[in-house]
């Protein structure tokens, strides 16, 4: 019995530490905000120019001038600040953001990440993903362990164009948590989802990891 999306997000939320500044990617990573433990106070950064992102607004609070990087309406908090895109990416590229949680199409055993482009299909662009993986201190990927066609997404080497080289620190899939103590080291198995065996994980994984 693998983890569902909420359970994956909840597992990722355990990686948040009190006082962290965190950037959450679009999609499943956004769910992580719902599972932050009481007593853990994190500040969410939105790369379109906001620190201290609040929850979705009530219907009568909607403000077209207040959106997140997914273009969703949001709210501000007591701690919030607004700034330009250049200052936002100074935070990101300058190494001031503690953690970013992103989605992925492929992660390689050396930490390479591909999450922005499938050749031959319409390319929407990398947005801020390349900046985040190049500049944020720690990168966690939240993804399904296998693609819809059943292919392993943790691979020997990425086949898709890269977002960044050697940038991923931890992968949380529906089957397992794989992590490495430092960039340049090998990934190792940290945790299996309930009911998932090591043999099953090996069968469904292409890239090497230490168990």
């Amino acid at each position, binding site marked *: 019995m693998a983890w569902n999306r909420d359970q994956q997000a909840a597992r990722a939320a355990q990686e948040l530490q009190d006082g962290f500044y965190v950037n959450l990617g679009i999609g499943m990573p956004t769910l992580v905000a719902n599972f932050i433990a009481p007593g853990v106070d994190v500040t969410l950064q939105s790369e*379109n120019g906001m620190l201290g992102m609040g929850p979705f607004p009530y219907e009568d609070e909607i403000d077209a001038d207040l959106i997140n990087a997914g273009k969703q309406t949001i709210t501000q908090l007591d701690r919030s600040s607004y700034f330009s895109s250049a200052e936002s*990416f100074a935070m990101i590229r300058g190494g001031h953001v503690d953690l970013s949680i992103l989605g992925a199409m492929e992660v390689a055993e050396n930490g390479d990440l591909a999450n922005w482009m499938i050749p031959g299909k319409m390319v929407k662009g990398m947005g801020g993903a390349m900046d985040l993986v190049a500049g944020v201190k720690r990168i966690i990927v939240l993804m399904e362990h296998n693609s819809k066609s059943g292919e392993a997404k943790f691979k020997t080497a990425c086949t898709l164009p890269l977002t960044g*080289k050697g940038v991923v620190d931890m992968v949380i899939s529906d089957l397992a948590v794989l992590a490495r103590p430092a960039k340049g080291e090998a990934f190792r198995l940290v945790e299996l989802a309930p009911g998932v065996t090591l043999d099953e994980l090996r069968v469904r994984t292409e890239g090497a990891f230490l168990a």
Partner: protein
Amino acid sequence: MPSKLYPDAAAALAGVTFDGMTIMSGGFGLCGIPEKLIAALKASGVTGITAISNNAGVDGFGLGLLLETRQIARMISSYVGENKEFERQYLAGELQLEFNPQGTLAERIRAGGAGIPGFYTKTGVGTLVAEGKEHKDFGGETYIMETGLVADLAIVKAWKADPYGNLVYRKTARNFNPMMATAGKVTIAEVEELVGPGELDPDHIHTPGIFVQRLIVGTDYEKRIEQRTVRQREQI
């Protein structure tokens, strides 16, 4: 000081547009876009535009208006996913597209406006973005060189202005507007409200007036929302 204030967007554009020009347009998605100036650019008929903008609008709004009329020949953007007409023109080879990582795009504009012709960044190293660019090591890490960007015209949207062109933005509608204001040979700002001299606190001005040559006050801002997300109040 000669007045920076123009009666409307069309008047503000007079004499500054020409075919083949480069235009920076502020905004993130549809948030903080210069609605009035984009509409006036459409009406002006200027064509062959290279548009530098984080996004490409949506069908029928924002820069999507200038795509429909084929006034844009080339775009420099970081993310363009919300626009079917854009996709059609791009796949048909009618529109050139250069993707920049969002932070690189922001910094290229900031650098251009500050007279900095190039800079080094880690963003994009080892990816398609790095191809053909100078690589240089600093302290054992590899960086690539990116160039500054300037434009013939920058169009930006702010919340308030005073007659001197000092600008204040509102919430996340600030985004790319402040850097673009610095990087236009001519910068035109459109605002929701013009206040009198001295009414903006000098400590709270986001864009100093030196960067703004022309100014218009817009009315009836549409401010379209792309993703209307809400929460429900608890029932008591």
